């Protein structure tokens, strides 16, 4: 494992991006940060700036307006960066598969490391997904 990746896993800072979700996944994501679920136990911290982020949490079905912003933000993330798709919309576009405004699924736009299905996924599921991601990356030599 590279030193960069090892350092990243000790305290991954997450950046939360909604690409046109109904806000339910965003509420559940914010729930993870509250004391009840408290993902700071795993060293995760929500950052306000994409330039400080190690993990991108993406919700929503990637509509035409937000895809442009998503690409711009992804270009600014310091690499290595891990991408987590939260919710059915981000994972497979859900009911918006044939929508005129959602031309591409998220994983055809940027590479995705973890999918967390659910509409919305429970905070426990989000935490489990992110912890699995950390374990997976940590065990890869």
């Amino acid at each position, binding site marked *: 494992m590279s030193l960069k990746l090892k350092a990243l896993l000790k305290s991954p800072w997450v950046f939360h991006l909604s690409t046109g979700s109904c806000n339910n996944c965003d509420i559940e994501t914010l729930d993870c940060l509250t004391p009840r679920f408290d993902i700071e136990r795993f060293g995760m911290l929500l950052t306000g700036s994409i330039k400080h982020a190690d993990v991108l949490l993406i919700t929503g079905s990637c509509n*035409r307006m937000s895809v442009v912003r998503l690409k711009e933000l992804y270009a600014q993330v310091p690499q290595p960066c891990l991408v987590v798709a939260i919710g059915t919309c981000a994972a497979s*576009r859900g009911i918006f598969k*044939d929508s005129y405004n959602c031309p591409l699924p998220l*994983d055809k736009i940027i590479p995705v490391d973890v999918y967390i299905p659910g509409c919305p996924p429970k905070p426990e599921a989000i935490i489990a997904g992110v912890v699995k991601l950390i374990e997976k990356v940590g065990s890869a030599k």
Partner: protein
Amino acid sequence: MTREEVLLDFTSRFNEDILDFEDKSNIRAYVRIKPESIVKIGTYLFRNIGARFNIASASDLPNNTEILYHFIIEDINLLISLRVLLDKDKPEIESLGKEIEAFNWIEREMSELLGITFIGHPDPRRLLLSDDWPEGVYPLRQDYEEWDKTADRTRGV
């Protein structure tokens, strides 16, 4: 004024403009009016009766393009929906946005999604669709066909 007084005043005042009146329920009334008198009736409801403009909704019907303007009179708990039927080939109606600011954005949205022209609209730009959306393609019309050949309709990886 009570509910009956408001409806009686409204129907007698605009007797010539009203094509169809349906007292749907205690809290709901549908009024089909002539498209050319929408500004007169809409501003009367908003300014004189004191109704709140809730929302407008449009849909592409088999023979017409329909717009519903929903006005709520909160004192008597009544929702009046003004229904206009427009020509499907050339949907045009006079804009209420030039009189009342609240109509501005919803008229922009209806014009971009369904291709309805609002004559005299103060700011006829797009509201929601992206900049690369082609002119003359209206996604909520019945005959909409996908124009973007790069779109992927699978579930992804």
